[in-house]
């Protein structure tokens, strides 16, 4: 399906980045796996970051926390290890429902070289299987925002049981409802063995082996894919399931990988696509011809740009991405219109200057920039909503488009005289 288009050289920038670090992905991961606990080993800044990013909307007894390093921990690593063991012991005693404990590395723990892999090993031995302890890094010096999920999933791969049987494994967190919908659609096509990583229970880990074909629900799981490939799995190359086109191509690619009759696939997908396009129509009228500028944030920018251009008729001024993974974007890049300016990395001041110069109709950005841009007269859409909302699949295509149409509608609604 991929026709090739020519894109100008990618604008590579290094400067101030206005992007969350990988710790932030805990905000959705802990909801996905309610029997897991995410313990960041870091500073007060880490605790404050997660709290601020999560907002108070999930202020319950949270399934994440921060082991805040103090001056004494910095003075001697031996003590820090002992302290961590003590703290984990207390935590697990108080929260017996925890089945998997993720020890999450942070900038300070990486810099002082606190070995969380060793710590996980130590605690695993001590817990004797009652709780599984794994570790990964969500530090800002190594990961951006959604990459934290990649780290968390990678840390689970060694725990997956082996099974050579054919199965489809969906990789990357989807909203529960969306996931169920995909599973039922695959079942209608005759694809019965479909598993997901992350699972809904951290103990219900999917198997992996030479019969496993990987279908990526999210574009930020590169390390997870490599780890799964080392265990014999093979990746299905497909665009991401955003929009009618992307979702259909995504499901069709999976069906094709399992040799399912294309007619049967079409019988399932065609009515969905037709309905999805119908639902999109009024939104397309709203968005058509509007100029869009995406700042780097969630790593979803390229698939979103593809959807908003091809299905909603938006013009792409600039498509920023924290980092460009050409392999995982292989099916997406050719679908971008000719001349699309991609940018990788960020120098936020320069990027804001480009926004001011190009006057887009809508800017997709993080929460730190949204109100200041609104005050400058730009309509904005916060990107963080995209990682919380059910946006994947044909049935969600119109909802996804609506997220972008809403700021524009609102501007038309408001009047002051």
């Amino acid at each position: 399906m991929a026709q090739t288009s020519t894109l100008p050289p990618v604008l590579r920038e290094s400067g101030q980045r206005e992007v969350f670090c990988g710790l932030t992905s805990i905000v959705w991961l802990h909801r996905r796996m309610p029997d897991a606990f995410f313990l960041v080993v870091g500073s007060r800044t880490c605790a404050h970051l997660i709290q601020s990013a999560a907002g108070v909307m999930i202020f319950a007894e949270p399934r994440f926390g921060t082991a805040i390093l103090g001056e004494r921990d910095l003075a001697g690593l031996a003590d820090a290890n002992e302290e961590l063991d003590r703290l984990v012991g207390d935590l697990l005693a108080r929260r017996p429902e925890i089945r998997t404990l993720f020890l999450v590395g942070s900038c300070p723990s990486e810099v002082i070289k606190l070995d969380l892999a060793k710590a996980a090993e130590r605690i695993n031995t001590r817990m004797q299987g009652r709780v599984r302890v794994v570790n990964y890094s969500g530090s800002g010096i190594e990961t951006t925002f959604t990459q934290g999920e990649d780290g968390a999933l990678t840390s689970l791969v060694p725990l997956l049981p082996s099974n050579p049987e054919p199965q489809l494994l969906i990789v990357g967190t989807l909203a529960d409802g969306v996931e169920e919908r995909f599973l039922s659609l695959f079942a209608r096509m005759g694809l019965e063995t479909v598993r997901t990583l992350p699972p809904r229970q951290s103990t219900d880990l999917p198997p992996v082996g030479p019969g496993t074909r990987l279908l990526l629900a999210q574009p930020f799981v590169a390390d997870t894919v490599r780890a799964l490939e080392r265990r014999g799995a093979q990746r299905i190359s497909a665009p991401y399931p955003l929009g009618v086109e992307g979702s259909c191509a995504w499901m069709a690619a999976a069906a094709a990988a399992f040799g399912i009759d294309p007619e049967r696939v079409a019988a399932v997908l065609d009515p969905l696509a037709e309905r999805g396009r119908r639902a999109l129509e009024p939104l397309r009228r709203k968005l058509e011809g509007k100029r869009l500028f995406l700042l780097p944030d969630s790593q979803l920018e390229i698939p979103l740009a593809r959807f908003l251009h091809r299905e909603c008729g938006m013009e792409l001024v600039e498509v920023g991405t924290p980092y460009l993974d050409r392999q995982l974007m292989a099916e997406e890049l050719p679908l971008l219109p000719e001349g699309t300016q991609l940018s990788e990395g960020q120098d936020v001041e320069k990027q804001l200057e480009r926004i001011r110069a190009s006057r887009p109709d809508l800017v997709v950005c993080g929460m730190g920039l949204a109100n200041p841009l609104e005050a400058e007269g730009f309509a904005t859409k916060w990107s963080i909503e995209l990682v919380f909302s059910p946006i994947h699949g044909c049935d969600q295509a119109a909802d996804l488009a609506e997220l972008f149409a809403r700021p524009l509608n609102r501007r038309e609604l408001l009047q002051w005289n």
Partner: protein
Amino acid sequence: MELTLWTYEGPPHVGAMRIAASMEGVHYVLHAPQGDTYADLLFTMIERRDRRPPVTYTTFQARDLGGDTAELVKRSIQQAVDRFKPEALLVGESCTAELIQDQPGSLACGMDLGVPVVSLELPAYSKKENWGAAETLYQLCRGLLKSQVPAPGTARPGPERWKEEKRRPRVNLLGPSLLGFRCRDDVRELRGLLADHGIDVNVVAPLGARPADLIRLPQADANLCLYPEVAGPLCSWLERNFGTPVVRTVPIGIGATAQFLRELCALLGLEPPELREADQRSRLPWYSKSVDSTYLTGKRVFIFADATHAIAAARIASRELGFTVVGLGTYSREQAREVRAAAKELGLEALISDDYLEVEQAMAEAAPELVLGTQMERHSAKRLGIPCAVISAPLHVQDVPARYAPQMGWEGANVIFDSWVHPLMMGLEEHLIGMFRHDFEFVDGHLSHLGGASAPAAQPVAAPVNEVPEVTPLSATPEGGALRWTASGEAELSRIPFFVRGKVRRNTEAYANERGVAEITEETLYEAKAHFSR
């Protein structure tokens, strides 16, 4: 190492950001990794600021660590100065940068930038946000004013020099900042209050001040230390070095506002304020004396906040509203002494903690009817089913209201009366619904006069006693035997106001356990009541 789930305060560099963002013409270069830029959203989302905080982050990455991060710092500093042309530059580091010891402050000082540079050393592993804010404000003022400090032994002008200089007295309002509780409105209220007494405002800092304004700080006849968490160290330094006297009474509540005015007028040599002023300017005294406020008498209130607002709330609650303060605490360790003193006056021991779970536990044990706290306590109180009013930072977007809603001064007292009493009245309403639930209108909770399908017309009276299961099994008691509430016990318990029901249940169970009673009847409940009231 300490386990933290939710925190009251951010790291100290966020305190420094609050100072920089509160001011005009100040820029802050922060040596920090990617991710630390999250702090921008505190200002742009919670405070709904229309511009980014004036902060440049170096956003170093792992690959920079092998190379020359000091060069990155210098480049960021130069770019920030060139782009933003600040009148004063703050340079500091966040927790991670502190570990790699690039000393950005010293680097900046060696750069000949043509602007005053203040190097901030805010120990991220031992200090917190409010300390960082106070230290930053102090260091910034000290840096800008140190050349003006008179030599030791120089005669200092007295607070009454305005008389000789034939002008009105003038004061500085110190401490209001972004992400502080209702600071914007407190400043407006105090400006009015001071104007009414013929007092001018010299400088408000940090909120809205420029570096040039800070240089004028010593021209004031007195400093008003409005938020000691932020302004305490600066006020003390100005007092020591410039001889400027400080009024430390925080004018929140009727009594404190009156005391504040008395102290200030006495200090400046002005006529003392009229006693009637409070009654004329605020409705709180009359509302509190009015007959329907009698139901406020002795209401049990639990207070947890920053020190400024906790102390103020304890005074208002106990003296001006006739509540009984059953718990008082703060997360502001720097001001623990003052809060302990306030608690002692009320016969309490102050809770000094930054562990919200410890606070929740203390709250549950105190069995209050109203909680005055932060957003954390609001959530804890909700879980416990207790009404709550928020009185202090840390802020939620709803703590930055569109309307004028100060805490200080006469209008502040009005705002406080409304915002504390309304949740209680809602609580009372719930109680009344509980009392009247035998009436068929209340069987399903609130029913509208519009009627509707939910009206249980067919079964008008469903006595709750019949709805209670015969015996309610309970979790195992500490001794291992299971306690049971009989239907009569449950029915009696359900007649007790909801906000003390939990406490009565616990007391009764404790009593039953102590006596080895396995079944709790209505009689057990009354025996326990008599036992505990002794």
